[in-house]
């Protein structure tokens, strides 16, 4: 199956960002002709490992060896030259250039006078796509390609570079079942051609379907590397989490009250269509589904930051105009968005400004803000959420992920919402904070707040929700009660097929 000597050895690498040690003395080997999974919770250090292999970050300590020789990957160009290709979760293509150029960039076939032989370049791209069994027009620009197609272009890029090591960072997160199958077929052929594959995913069924070996990380440290034949999924989960799951999800039982949020037939072409559901006061409703199934778009449309083509949204019996977050906020809706860095926070502004921004009008006196009331309010709410920071005037970007998320929560809880929408509330935050956030949601629900939660983490969905709504490809496909919802039932609804778990 695999060669006896590893293609790439990672030897005791460490990497810190400021005071935070992201990766501590991690070692593992990648073998040619083998697919190697890297798993761990968010924040376990997987993406730091990927970035070190990609030449984006340089390890503080430890070495990376390629075919027995230590290499210094100090830039992406070095990694590329060393034969390491990285495929990111969000592909990094040049939207203005043609697909063929994207594949050939830096390695374009040359003709006379060292000019680029375009015909040959297009031909090569075409051959790669034929080999991958996909039909993408090499002449079209990369702009407008679906995420799945962009992934395929990235793989074609790796193929054309004859990469010895191909690292795939959660490539399937945004793909449909069929697309995943196609990707796997391609990955297997890559592996069978002798490349060493590193595959990062949260989905165990994919790991067991594709990989031979798995390395598990937790809190920046290596837990173990095992052959997949030697380890069960349960064992993997235990190693990843390293603790009892139950305590993480302190869900209190609540008798739901009146309908707080009522969504009727909202559509937005082509992202989602005909979505209807209610959330009652005191209820936690999870909106589950694969990434890209339209969950975030639905909640953003409810809140008004995204438009919608049809349908109505009512809060406490009042109909909200589409496209006006201000009105939604006035009606008591709060949205803790999916992407903390881009949507949730103003990273360059102070903690104080971030916490009080949605309420700046309410905090003003005769229309003026002198700072005192904002500071007091910011202090009150950050304290209430036990946020750790130096000064309120520090940039929010200086905080750790967990504390940043607390700032976002403080910002919205301060508006005293009746309907709290949280989109991936615990993404990228440490375990301790995770439990705090869950406790908070639970107690809010107990106080009569209607909570709508979008989450990709199945344990979170199952642990926290009173009801689970499942979306697939822009449509609501299932509604499961707490009793009905299991990993299998949710995944089945989300993927439209029997899970292989």
């Amino acid at each position, binding site marked *: 199956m695999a060669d006896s000597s590893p293609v790439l050895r990672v030897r005791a690498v460490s990497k810190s960002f400021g005071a935070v040690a992201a990766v501590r003395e991690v070692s593992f080997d990648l073998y040619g002709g083998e697919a190697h999974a890297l798993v761990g919770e968010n924040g376990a250090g997987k993406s730091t490992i990927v970035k070190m292999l990609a030449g984006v970050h340089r390890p503080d300590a430890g070495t990376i060896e390629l075919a027995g020789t230590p290499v210094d990957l100090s830039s*992406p160009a070095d990694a590329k030259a060393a034969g390491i290709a990285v495929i990111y979760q969000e592909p990094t*293509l040049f939207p203005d250039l043609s697909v063929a*150029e994207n594949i050939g960039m830096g390695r374009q076939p040359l003709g006379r006078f060292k000019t680029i032989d375009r015909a040959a370049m*297009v031909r090569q791209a075409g051959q790669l796509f*034929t080999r991958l069994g*996909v039909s993408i027009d090499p002449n079209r620009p990369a702009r*407008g*390609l679906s995420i799945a197609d962009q992934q395929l272009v990235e793989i074609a890029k790796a193929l054309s570079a004859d990469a010895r090591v191909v690292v795939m960072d959660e490539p399937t997160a945004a793909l449909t079942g*069929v697309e995943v199958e196609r990707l796997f077929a391609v990955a297997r052929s890559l592996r069978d051609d002798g490349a060493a594959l590193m595959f990062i995913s949260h989905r165990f069924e994919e790991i067991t379907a594709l990989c031979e070996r798995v390395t598990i990380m937790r809190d920046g440290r290596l837990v173990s590397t095992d052959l997949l034949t030697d380890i069960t999924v349960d064992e993997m989960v235990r190693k990843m989490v390293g603790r009892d799951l139950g305590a993480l999800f302190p869900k209190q039982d609540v008798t739901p009250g009146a309908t707080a949020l009522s969504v009727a037939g909202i559509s937005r072409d082509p992202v989602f269509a005909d979505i209807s559901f209610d959330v009652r006061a005191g209820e936690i409703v999870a909106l589950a589904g694969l990434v890209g199934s339209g969950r975030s778009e639905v909640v953003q449309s409810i809140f008004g930051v995204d438009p919608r083509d049809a349908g109505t949204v009512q809060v406490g019996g009042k109909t909200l105009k589409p496209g006006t977050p201000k009105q939604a906020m006035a009606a008591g809706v709060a949205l803790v968005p999916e992407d903390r860095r881009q949507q949730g926070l103003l990273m360059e502004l102070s903690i104080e400004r971030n916490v009080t921004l949605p309420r700046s009008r309410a905090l003003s006196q005769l229309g003026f803000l002198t700072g005192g009331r904002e500071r007091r309010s910011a202090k009150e709410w950050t304290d209430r959420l036990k946020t750790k920071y130096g000064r309120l005037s520090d940039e929010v970007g200086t905080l750790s992920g967990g504390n940043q998320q607390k700032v976002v929560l403080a910002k919205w809880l301060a508006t005293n919402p009746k309907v709290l929408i949280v989109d991936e509330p615990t993404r990228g935050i440490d375990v301790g904070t995770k439990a705090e956030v869950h406790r908070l949601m639970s107690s809010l629900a107990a106080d009569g707040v209607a909570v709508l939660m979008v989450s990709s983490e199945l344990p979170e969905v199952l642990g926290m929700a009173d009801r689970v709504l499942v979306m697939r490809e822009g449509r609501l496909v299932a509604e499961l009660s707490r009793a009905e919802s299991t990993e299998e039932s949710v995944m089945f609804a989300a993927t439209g097929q029997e899970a292989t778990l």
Partner: protein
Amino acid sequence: MTAVGLPAPRRSSLDVVLRARELGIVLALAVLVAVTTISNPRFLSGQSIRDILLNTAILAVLAVGQAVVVITRNIDLSVGSVLGLSAFTVGTLLQNNNLPVILALLVGAGVGVVCGALNGVLVRYGNVPALVVTLGTLYVVRGVTYFWAGGSQINADELPSGFLNFGNATLIGIPYLVLLAVLVLVVTGVVLRSYRMGRELYAMGSSPQAARLAGIPVARRTIGAFVVSGGLAGLAGVLFAARFGTIDAAAGTGYELNVVAAVVVGGVAVFGGSGSVWGAALGALLLTTIGSALAVLEINQFWQQAIVGALILLAIGADRLVAARVAASLKKRGSHVS
């Protein structure tokens, strides 16, 4: 999109879109020339065409350099000042000094290359936005020129006749200046289109982050783009000196806006990644022709600037519209994996 197989190397849809953009300028140009010629047939006389081409030559050389920088998602506002410094340097050098034209060209371009390298280094290593850097060097370079020139002027009769002839003489009916501009255009156009280096410039402008991850030597390329822009501005300074013969410290003041206008009208997106030097040169030709046509049509010359402004707005508005259209159509045929 069901056919799987080797697509024939045909014209890419990307190219078609770009060509359509340049075709738009050509059409506008044709209409303008036609209307003007009908009203005054002498507009198409040999002398008139020669004059328009001569006037375009300088602007086009600048626009080509600017396009290279804009394609990388930067901007170079210092070109007018660099032109002035180069023109004055060359003028001083040649003052009562019969040096060969080729030397003048090299010195002028050299002055520009130094300025361009300064811009590039500040942008790249100083981490200062190009707009700020080149706004600063616009002042500095102009100030240095004034310092040096101190209000003196170099007159045509002080320059060697060989040099002045270069500004007016022709080869088989085409002025040298125009030939030189075409040469610059073709070389830059070919490098941008058919050399790895050129494609990397587009890649950097299209997605700076992806360019870094793709291992493109971003620092070297950024500085290179500014060096090209500076060098061409320097070259344009020599052309300016040869064409007008009278040089003072104010030469080329305010050119930067015309150049940026030509580039934008020529379809180079201000946020990088698309457009071509052909378009930029056509933009320069269109702007110059408008100027001449207004004079011939006896339209108040005051309208010229307003028309240029309206044209810029029209061009970026149209580009936006076309981009949205193309994006929509691409999206529709994008989902084919089934």
